[in-house]
């Protein structure tokens, strides 16, 4: 029984979940593109607020908050490495002397800030992909690809499902070991045994699934290529499609127009103009607007 946060896609009552998978994927791609097109920490910061807000709007705030912890763990080494490796800034805040392969150990504020910006960018990408994996139905998304390669899409779909099944199996096995007297054996050997039991259980599971697929006609030979079932665009489909276009267009125009310039070296330079404000405000608003309309989100 899943007592904690959601680990895999689960249909929740939210505008993002109510949106068709292709449109939701498009919206996610727009957020990724906006992240990659932006360099300014101001813009990235407001995008972060937008993504976290979207997570909350999709009922996945707890999951994204949990992922933020992982992001922090990833971000710290990125910042540290950048500070240690890049010495291009002019504002030195610590002199560590000769650091061998890293050269002269002058740590600069510019490298520190740029490291943080890179970490913010990586973190944003992690959060957006987490949101996508939790809010977009993989089966529905893969249906699109079935027209081109049924078996590849089905295999991908199966893999998605099996991750959940095998994870549940592992949890069950671990739980069973906890019910042994003394909480079960500990130590490396016991872990190897448990791992081996898990692998054995996975193989058994795979055999059963293979038998089921056989009976369901997976190997039935040529099949007709079916068109994806037509279904009218809902208000949420339209809203997220518009949002995706707006986010992408804003990010692209902002980049082309240099609306939010950011130059870390040799001295930090981040001129702020009205265009910067428009971009900082426009991106999260465009991303979050579809969440306002909560009609028809139940299932």
């Amino acid at each position: 029984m899943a007592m904690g946060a959601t680990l895999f896609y689960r249909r929740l009552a939210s505008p993002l979940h109510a949106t068709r998978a292709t449109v939701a994927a498009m919206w996610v791609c727009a957020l990724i593109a906006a992240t990659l097109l932006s360099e300014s920490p101001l813009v990235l910061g407001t995008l972060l607020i937008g993504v976290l807000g979207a997570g909350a709007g999709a009922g996945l705030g707890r999951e994204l908050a949990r992922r933020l912890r992982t992001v922090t763990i990833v971000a710290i080494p990125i910042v540290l490495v950048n500070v240690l490796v890049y010495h291009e800034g002019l504002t030195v805040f610590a002199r560590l002397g000769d650091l061998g392969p890293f050269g002269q150990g002058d740590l600069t504020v510019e490298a520190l800030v740029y490291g943080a910006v890179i970490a913010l960018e990586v973190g944003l990408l992690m959060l957006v992909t987490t949101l996508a994996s939790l809010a977009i139905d993989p089966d529905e998304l893969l249906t699109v690809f079935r027209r081109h390669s049924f078996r590849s899409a089905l295999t991908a779909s199966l893999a998605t499902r099996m991750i959940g099944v095998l994870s549940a199996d592992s949890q069950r096995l671990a739980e069973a070991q906890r019910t042994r007297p003394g909480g079960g054996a500990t130590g490396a050997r016991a872990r190897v045994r448990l791992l081996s039991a898990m692998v054995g259980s996975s193989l058994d599971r795979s055999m059963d699934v293979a038998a089921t697929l056989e009976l369901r006609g997976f190997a039935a030979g040529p099949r007709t290529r079916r068109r994806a079932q037509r279904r009218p665009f809902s208000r949420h489909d339209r809203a997220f499609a518009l949002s995706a276009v707006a986010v992408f267009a804003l990010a692209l125009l902002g980049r082309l127009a240099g609306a939010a310039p950011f130059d870390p070296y040799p001295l930090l330079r981040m001129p702020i103009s009205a265009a910067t404000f428009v971009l900082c405000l426009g991106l999260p608003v465009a991303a979050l607007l579809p969440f306002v309309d909560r009609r028809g989100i139940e299932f």
Partner: protein
Amino acid sequence: MAFSQVTYTYPESSAAALRGVTLELEQGELCLLAGRSGQGKSTLLRAACGLVPHFHGGTFAGSVSVAGMDTREHPPAQLGAHVGVLQGDAETQLVMSSVRAELALAMESRGHGATAVARAVEEVALALGIDHLLERSTHELSGGEKQRVALGAALVGRPRVVLLDEPTSQLDPVAGDELIGLLRRLNQEWDTTILLSEHRLERCLSAADRVIALDAGEVVHDGSPSSFLGFAAEHETSLQTPGAKLFALAGITPPPVGVKQARAFLRRDGLLPEEPDPFADQVASAQVRKGGDAIDASTSGAQHDARARGRFTRRARGEANAASALALRGVWCEIPRGPAILRGVDLQVAPGERVALMGRNGAGKSTLLRHAAGLLVPTRGKIERAGRVALLLQNPGDYFLHERVRDELSPEALKRAGLDALAERNPRDLSGGERQRLALAIVADGEETPAVVALDEPTRGMDREAKAQLAAELHRRAEQGQAVIVATHDPEFAASCAQRAILLADGRIIADGPVADLLTGGWYFATETARILGGASGALLPADGAELLCAIAAERVSRPEGADAQPARTMGQALSSQHGTPNQSQETPELLIHAAGETHT
């Protein structure tokens, strides 16, 4: 479907799983496969859908023809267009992430158009009552829901033949009865041929047209349900239904194939006991509450029973308060942003007490046991344990980490569990009952004797013999002072192993009392004996029921002629007039009663 001289041996096995099986199934038959565990039922079903030999390999002789196709020439993928299969573990039969995709898969694989697929998915979902699950993820379904979705996936292409391997094993009594009813409807309305393997025969025998019994891979009986019961009484008593056993012990023939027939036989013979008034219980309980023990001596029998039950409960609670093996006080389990699984559960279990935990799928039984064992921590409330709580989870295979039984347990513990003879075997090759015993020994036979032994749905896939052994083992542990809590969907098992039953619904305890109270008088949470006898005298098991029937017969014999407007016939007279002169009915009632008394009093 036709089997002709089919003999099959699994790879790396020396013994044949099927031996010279020859049988034919007509279109529209609902046929039940009976037999103890490991006698070839599942293998026969696999042979009928082509998995044997195409998928499993091994040595195959003879031929199987399904819907005009020889299974040797057509692989399961082709046969699957005509044969729907539901295997024992629903979890392994769900391969997609969402229910809708799962139901659509089989038809999409065979190239049906989008409209046909959409219609079929919608129809099968409506027929099985799972339309509300269509957008749900398969991994968040409950066991019962998974079973229904897997059945839907098997039925979506409207196959001519449906094969089911213990489809009710994970279902609560209500869902199990609904499933059997649904199969009967499919069979009657769509002329679908159904071959169904099941251990709890009492659930589906009355719906079956025919019963095939297997023993060591051979067909040992093929005939009507009533002839099967005759066969079981003579050759394999572990296959008798509780109703048939009740009649056999009371010396009544022929054995009934269901509750309705059993009641009709008893009514005709004037042996149907008067059913207790279900409301008398409430009146009496109210009196107990108002007036304590000061109830008028002229109270009815039912009221006396209720008073006795009140005493039982008070005594039980008093004892539990004094020294509980386990006490849950106001325990809540609330999922963040999800429902509450347990809602303020108060429960006390005394040392040596045997408790059956019952309720529908998703009522909170497993969660309660997990809290009791400390695997989960309550979000509110308190749990007190007198010692270790040994919890045996649903899948005994999860406990096995080694290749040999002897590596799982010490030699002494193996001997205590009576498994020393199996020391060299691989735990995964043991029978269902043996696996359960080994897993129970692993969790409960450590250096520290547990104060509580808790088992979560331990009888899944077990035959009656294995269940009886497990019940005996639980009695033994209770006699040693260990409290026993069993979460089960099986009322027969609950009646045989527990003295107290608790009914959970929606995370709350809605009823708690002696099994004789809780498992009588209901439609679903009642044993077959109780349903046949209408809950009279709290008879739950065939032996108690037979005693009651003999007592009724004796009373009728001793009643003076003309005392009744319609003089009751004796059991012997009734039987001889109704069924000619069957063996046992030629005996006098006194002899019958004596025979029953010798066996069961």
